[in-house]
């Protein structure tokens, strides 16, 4: 019980101010690591202020001090019990070449599901074009794709003037922002337990499949590959990766076979979602540049072999990047396997010992 409030406040205020100063410092410099002695002092200040809050709560007439202490305790609580986010400085190269591909591989199952959804959509789109060619006016959202492919190819190849002259950079930035928005939307649709994400991928697959079959059946495969592959080799996988992040979100929401709470599941994937979507944004940045500056130029300006070769090279590099980049060396992998096996043995041993102890205890109680 507080007998003299003024005396209590004047005696405790230095501790509150000290705690506030530590919290301000930690907020300003997130990478700061406190030494053991300073950490102990921080913990002591937190506990002392918590105690003061508990005492002042019984004192009706100090709403301001109570609110101040509540805010202080709340901040210190967040700092002490906060989830262990590694303090780090920005390391974009490490993030791109290690964290991003590692995260992709960690959730590769979601990627395969998305790829399947897109392929099924593609097969459906292709099938519709074969069965009912007139349906392409309904299926394809872009008017320049409604006509005869051979006519378009002839027109594009005969064009003397540069259609995009003086507009390449703005077209490129439009593509980047539009595709990134679509990707973020595909991620966000994971909120529909993944149904929206899969529909989005299926729909994109339908358009792609319809266009591909339309041009292949018209005998314009080289044009098609030369037109789509340079930017599509990055852009299409980027959209699938966005779908992957949507399914990762959906997986956390559904939580099949996971014993942790929904909040914990969402907390666990939040870093991965951000990594995937930021990686997708980087990929789309590149694809936007290629599409505006390279893909829209056809023979005789750029030979199809060069365009197809460039696209194929991009695809190979992307596959290598996603599957190999950021992988641990043989030694590191063996070490990590050893540590994991050791951990499981220790856990099993500890559980056995606890089980034995429990049995002994229960039989003693029965006696």
């Amino acid at each position, binding site marked *: 019980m507080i007998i003299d*409030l003024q005396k209590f406040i004047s005696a405790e205020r230095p501790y509150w101010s000290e705690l506030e100063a530590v919290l301000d410092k930690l907020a300003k410099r997130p990478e700061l690591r406190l030494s053991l002695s300073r950490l102990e002092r921080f913990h002591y200040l937190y506990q002392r202020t918590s105690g003061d809050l508990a005492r002042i709560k019984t004192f*009706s007439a100090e*709403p301001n001090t109570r609110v101040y202490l*509540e805010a202080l*305790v709340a901040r210190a*609580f967040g700092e002490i019990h906060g989830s262990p986010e590694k303090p780090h400085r920005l390391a974009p190269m490490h993030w791109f070449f290690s964290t991003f591909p590692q995260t992709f591989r960690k959730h590769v199952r979601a990627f395969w599901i998305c790829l399947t959804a897109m392929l099924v959509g593609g097969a459906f789109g292709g099938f519709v074009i074969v069965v009912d060619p007139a349906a392409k006016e309904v299926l394809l959202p872009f008017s320049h794709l409604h006509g005869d492919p051979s006519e378009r190819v002839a027109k594009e190849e005969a064009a003397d003037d540069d259609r995009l002259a003086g*507009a390449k950079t703005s077209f490129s930035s439009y593509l980047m*922002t539009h595709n990134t928005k679509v990707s973020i939307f595909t*991620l966000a649709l994971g*909120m529909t337990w993944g149904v929206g994400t899969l529909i989005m991928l299926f729909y994109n697959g339908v358009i792609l499949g319809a266009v591909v079959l339309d041009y292949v059946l018209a005998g314009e495969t080289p044009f098609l590959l030369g037109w789509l592959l340079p930017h599509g080799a990055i852009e299409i996988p980027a959209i699938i990766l966005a779908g992957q992040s949507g399914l990762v979100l959906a997986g956390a929401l559904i939580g099949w076979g996971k014993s942790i709470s929904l909040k914990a599941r969402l907390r666990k994937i939040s870093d991965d979602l951000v990594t995937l979507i930021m990686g997708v944004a980087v990929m789309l940045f590149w694809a936007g540049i290629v599409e505006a500056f390279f893909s829209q130029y056809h023979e005789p300006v750029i030979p199809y072999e060069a365009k197809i070769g460039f696209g194929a090279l991009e695809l190979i590099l992307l596959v290598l990047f996603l599957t190999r980049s950021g992988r641990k060396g043989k030694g590191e992998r063996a070490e990590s396997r050893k540590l994991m096996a050791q951990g499981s043995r220790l856990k099993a041993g500890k559980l056995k010992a606890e089980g034995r102890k429990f049995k002994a205890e229960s039989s003693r109680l029965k006696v």
Partner: protein
Amino acid sequence: MMVDKINSLTIRTPEGIEFSLMLAGPVTRFLAWSVDLLVILTTNKLLNVLLGVLGIISRDFAMAAGVLMYFIVSIGYGIVTEWYWHGQTLGKRLLRLRVTDVCGLKLRFSQIVIRNLLRFVDSLPVFYMVGGLACLINRRAQRLGDFVANTIVVWSPRVEEPDLDQLLEGKYNSFRKYPHLEARIRQHVSPAEAQVALQALVRRDEFEPRARVQLFQSIVTYFKTFISFPQEATESISDEQYIRNLVDALYRPKTAGKSS
């Protein structure tokens, strides 16, 4: 941890200390968002003026920069400000709102990014209809972005000290003769109960005469269940004066007590 009916989130620390966070409602949040939208539009307008100058050199480049800037500002504004101001944008600062972790933990960068990216779904079909509905349905007033990012938006009301001088001026307090009983009042009366007594006094002129008498009567009856002053301290005073004395005992600064 529990969510009670007054829309506040109570967090209990392992040390057994509780602190409450007032949850912000959809209307306040919409107002904060309107301010932020205004800031985004103004920033883009200013950038367009600047890029107009760049357009003299290259129109294509200026247009590209305009498209990219609009995209970066509209998506990055929330992320950057909430990260820099620890959960606040300009609109939120004006309306005293703050984004915090749902468990009261430190806000992580990924949480800020996710809640801002999921605006794409929350803002559908127009004026944040999906987010607003989610906010109304969710017991922690979370929109979909908050739900996925494990965040809540809290409101910190400004706490002002009551003008006690105006309330208690020039009145004799018969309770002051019994400092030990006054000390007991301070110990037993909860902050919420003290607020009821104080608010009744502050707003006394707003009541109808009959309601005013009944209100003070019922408050006095309640307080008398656990505090009993000697008869000579209470016999000749009205119920309103009883509450006035009580509030004086609760809120009077120690030094003021000594001086009088």
